[in-house]
C-alpha cells in the first residue's frame, strides 16, 4: 500500500462521511448533541483541503496531515480523538513508502492506543472504541493468518460493524451519552457508526487498488 492508496482511503472516508452526515447526526441527536455528522463532515472536508494544498509524500505523512487537520478543524470529542488516532497511526508508519499489511495492523493498533490514552474509554463504555478495538483485533488476526488483504479488510469491517451494533444495548460511561445514564440504552453510538465508515472506506480503497 503506497501513498496513493492512503490518499484514496482518506478520500473514501470523506465521501462516506458526507453521504452519511445526516445519519450520524441523527444517531447523535438520540443520545448526544446532534452534531457528529456535521463535525466529521467539516473535518474531512478540511482534511481533503489540507491534502490538496500540501500533498504529502509518504503514507505516514498522509495520515499525520489528516490527523492534524481533524484536530484543527473538528473540535468536540471526535476531533481530538480521531485526530490523535490518525496522527499516531501516521507516526507508527514512519517514512516508509510502501506499507505492509503487518505495518497497517500495527498502525491501527497505535491509533487505538492513542484514542484510549487520550479519552480513557475501555471497551463496553459505548464509544467508538467498541467498534475500533474489535476491528483492530480482527485485522491483527487476519494478517497473522496470512489472509489475503481484501479478505482481511472485509473481516475488519465486519468486526467494526458488529462492534458498533453491539453498542446498542450498552449504557454509556463516556462521552455525552453518559449523561443519559440508563436512557442511553437502545441506541447505537454515533462514533462507533463513523468508525465503521472508516473501515468500510479502507476495504473499498483496497478493492480498487
Amino acid at each position, binding site marked *: 500500500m503506497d501513498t496513493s492508496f492512503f490518499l484514496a482511503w482518506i478520500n473514501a472516508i470523506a465521501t462516506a462521511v458526507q453521504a452519511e452526515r445526516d445519519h450520524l*447526526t*441523527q444517531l447523535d*441527536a*438520540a*443520545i*448526544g*448533541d*446532534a*452534531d457528529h455528522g*456535521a*463535525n466529521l463532515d*467539516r473535518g474531512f472536508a478540511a482534511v481533503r483541503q489540507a491534502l490538496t494544498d500540501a500533498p504529502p509524500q509518504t503514507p505516514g505523512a498522509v495520515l499525520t496531515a489528516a490527523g492534524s487537520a481533524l*484536530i*484543527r*478543524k*473538528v*473540535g*468536540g*470529542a*471526535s*476531533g*481530538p*480523538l480521531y485526530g490523535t488516532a490518525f496522527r499516531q497511526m501516521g507516526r507508527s508508519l514512519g517514512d516508509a513508502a510502501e506499507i505492509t499489511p503487518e505495518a497497517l495492523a500495527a498502525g491501527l493498533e497505535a491509533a487505538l492506543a492513542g484514542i484510549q490514552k*487520550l*479519552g480513557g474509554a475501555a471497551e463496553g*463504555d459505548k464509544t467508538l472504541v467498541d467498534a475500533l478495538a474489535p476491528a483492530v483485533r480482527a485485522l491483527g488476526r487476519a494478517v497473522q493468518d496470512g489472509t489475503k488483504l481484501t479478505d482481511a479488510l472485509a473481516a475488519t469491517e465486519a468486526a467494526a460493524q458488529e462492534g458498533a451494533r453491539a453498542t446498542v444495548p450498552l449504557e454509556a*460511561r*463516556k*462521552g*455525552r451519552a*453518559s*449523561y*443519559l*445514564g440508563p*436512557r442511553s440504552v437502545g441506541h447505537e453510538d454515533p462514533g462507533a457508526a463513523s468508525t465503521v465508515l472508516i473501515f468500510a472506506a479502507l476495504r473499498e480503497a483496497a478493492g480498487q487498488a
Partner: protein
Amino acid sequence: MKKLINSVDAVVTDTLRGIAAAHPSLRVDVENKVIYRADAPHQGKVGLVSGGGSGHEPLHGGFVGYGMLDAACPGEVFTSPVPDQMIEASKGVDGGAGVLHIVKNYTGDVLNFEMAAELCADEGIEVASVLVNDDVAVQDSLYTAGRRGTGATLFVEKIAGALAETGAPLAEVARVAKEVNERSRSFGVALTAGTVPAAGRPTFELPDTEIELGIGIHGEPGRTRTSHREAREIARLALDAIDDDVALSGDTLVLLNGMGGTPLMELYIVYAEVAAYLEEKGARAVRSLVGNYVTSLDMQGFSVSVCRLTDELTRLWDAPVETPGLRWGR
C-alpha cells in the same frame, strides 16, 4: 426550522460579526474565532480564557470584559472549539502572569483544552486549568465522563475574573475558581428541545404534557421525563436534586437561568418558588440573577444554579464588572 440566520454554515461567523458591531469594548477576531477585551493583554494580570460550543450566548463571549474573561473561544454550535483558537487566545491575553483556562467538563472541551494547554506550555505560556462540573443531574463516578459544566461557569468566570483584576497570582485565581465550582450545584429542566441549525429539527420531541428533567445545555435529553406540572413543583424537583447532593444552607448566590426560548416572565415565576424553597430550608438567596445567561439555542426551560457563598466569594461577586452580559459597579 425557522431561524434568523443567513446560512447554516455561517451562524458562528455571523454571530461574531454582530458581537463585533455591537460591542466596541471587545476586539473580535472573526477569522480565528476569538473574542478579546479590546485592551488585552494586561501586563501583570492573569489572563482568563474560556470557550465552548456556540449556542449558549451570552456565554462565553458576552462575559469578556473588565472583571471577567480576557478572551473567549466559540466553537461551532454545541461543539467545543479547537486547540488553535485556545492557543491564539492564550497568547493574546498573556500579560506575563499566566493564563487560566476555564473549561466546562465535556469530553470535547476537556480534550481540546488539554491539547491547547500542552502547546501553550511549549510556547512558554504558563497555563492553569479549572474544570467546571456543577450539574447534579449527572451521576458522577470514576468510570464515567463525570458531571457536566453548566450554569456555575458564570459564577467561576465572574469571581475568578474579579480576583484576577486585583493582580492576584495564577495559583490564587485558580484556587478561587476551583472553590467556586466546588461550592456550586446546578439542575436543568426543559419544556422543549432546541434546534441545532445544522440538524434542522429539535434534538428530541417532547409532548405537550411532558417535561425533561436533568437536561444539559447541548440539547441532550435529560435523565428522566415526567408530566408537566405547576412551576412551584418543577422548581421543587430541581432544588430537591441539588439539596440531595449537598444540603442547602446559609447565604447563597442563585442563578435562575433561561435556556433561550423562555420569556423572562416565566423565569421570575420560577424564581419566586426558588426563593421560597430556599427560605424553607433555612438558606437565603442573598445575591441572584434571573435571565438568559447560559442558554441552549431556542430551548424552552430553565436551569437553577446555587453557590454557597463565603465572605470572600460575596466580595468578589460584588466587585465591578463590565461585560456585554454582566455589568455593575462601573
